């Protein structure tokens, strides 16, 4: 039985070998001699369309997978780009800040104080939000040569004067403080008056002669009288002239030359500069 099985297997193998040999003979190295025959063509006519369909299905599946994969990649990329945008925005804000500061300092440095003054640049460190137009604190003090009544200016004009000095800081009374009064001249007519603070972002020009031909847009400068402020510092611009019938003087509403609500750096005009490097 076993022997019969072995003989059958050997016979089968021999037959298949012979068949393969017949098939292979002549066309093993010559593809053009490959003859599939009618049966082969029939099989291929079934097989190839089936393969094409399966291949299309695989393409669709592969395409869907690719889309899903790309969505995942896009999400990652999107998160990365968002972080990048956020970082660049922060950087842009920093750069804009630095640029604005550089511009302010450049303008500040353009200010040339009259002799015998020199200037000390100071940074505004604190302000009282409830009394915005009264005083502020700067980061310079006695060691920097500051003293009481030193004028404080920007490139645009007068800010105020130092009224309290400490070792490393000083408090500045703004021209808009109601306690502040500055002797001024109308730049065009040279008529004298006094600019007083009002506690808001305006000054009041008082004690100006009725005969003075004051008009909106006139520039006021310090008169140099009183000994606190040197002559010629811009104080403000006349915005509204107030003439009251029967009054001895005329008055005006004046816009300060410097935007006092946005002060960040100022120059303190000192008469006696400190010796050595003061901060």
């Amino acid at each position, binding site marked *: 039985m076993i022997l019969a099985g072995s003989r059958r297997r050997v016979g089968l193998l021999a037959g298949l070998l012979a*068949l393969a040999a017949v098939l292979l003979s002549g066309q093993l190295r010559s593809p053009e001699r490959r003859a599939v025959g009618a049966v082969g063509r029939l099989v*291929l006519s079934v097989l190839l369309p089936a393969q094409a369909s399966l291949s299309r299905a*695989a393409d669709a599946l592969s395409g869907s997978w690719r889309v899903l994969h790309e969505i995942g990649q896009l999400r990652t990329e999107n998160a990365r780009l968002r972080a990048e945008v956020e970082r660049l925005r922060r950087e842009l804000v920093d750069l804009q800040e630095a640029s604005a500061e550089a511009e302010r300092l450049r303008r500040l440095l353009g200010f040339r104080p009259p002799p015998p003054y020199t200037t000390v640049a100071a940074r505004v460190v604190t302000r009282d939000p409830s009394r915005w137009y009264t005083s502020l604190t700067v980061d310079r003090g006695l060691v920097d040569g500051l003293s009481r009544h030193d004028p404080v200016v920007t490139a645009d004009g007068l800010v105020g004067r130092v009224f309290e000095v400490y070792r490393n800081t000083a408090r500045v009374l703004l021209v808009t403080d109601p306690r502040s009064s500055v002797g001024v001249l109308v730049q065009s007519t040279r008529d004298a008056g006094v600019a007083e603070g009002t506690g808001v972002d305006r000054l009041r020009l008082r004690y100006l002669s009725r005969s003075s031909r004051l008009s909106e847009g006139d520039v006021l400068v310090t008169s140099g009288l009183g000994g606190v402020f040197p002559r010629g510092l811009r104080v403000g611009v006349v915005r509204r002239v107030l003439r009251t019938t029967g009054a001895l003087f005329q008055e005006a509403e004046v816009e300060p030359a410097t935007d006092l609500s946005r002060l960040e750096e100022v120059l303190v005009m000192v008469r006696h500069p400190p010796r050595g490097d003061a901060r």
Partner: protein
Amino acid sequence: MTWWRRGGVAAAYGLLLLLAVAVEGAWAWRLGWGGGAADPVLLLVLAASLRRGPEVGALAGFAGGLLQDLAGGGPLGMVALSKSVVGLAAGTLARTLALEGAWAPAALAAAASVGAKLVELGLAWLAGDAPLWLPWLAGTAATASYNALLAPIVFAGLRRVRRWLGPATPGGVPEA
């Protein structure tokens, strides 16, 4: 087994082989790696051989290989011969060796893959074609690995088909 039953089994195997060739041509190459790809025809031939004996394995191998030759555009008979040798050998081995355990299908598939490639190599050598050894070895190893991984799945799937087809011939082994 009656003649009509035999005919049914043969037709079922034929269809499965046709499907395997179609799947191989359309899908298997896409998942190829290291110069090799899964060979579902070989796995089917192995299943037939283990289940229904070496003769059926040899015939299935020849038919499946011939279909691969036909679809692949290679010399007709080359893969047919290698697959029929593998089918015959696997069936014969299954009768003499105890192929048991979960690893058996994977090991057999790997060995059969290498065997089939060796037969093809021999035929190519006879024809005067010498392959580049490194790519050949890499491709053979990759194909053997793929088939080893797929064999347990394919065999399990075929067991379900077999339940529908009916009982095996006495010469087969139950594992496949």
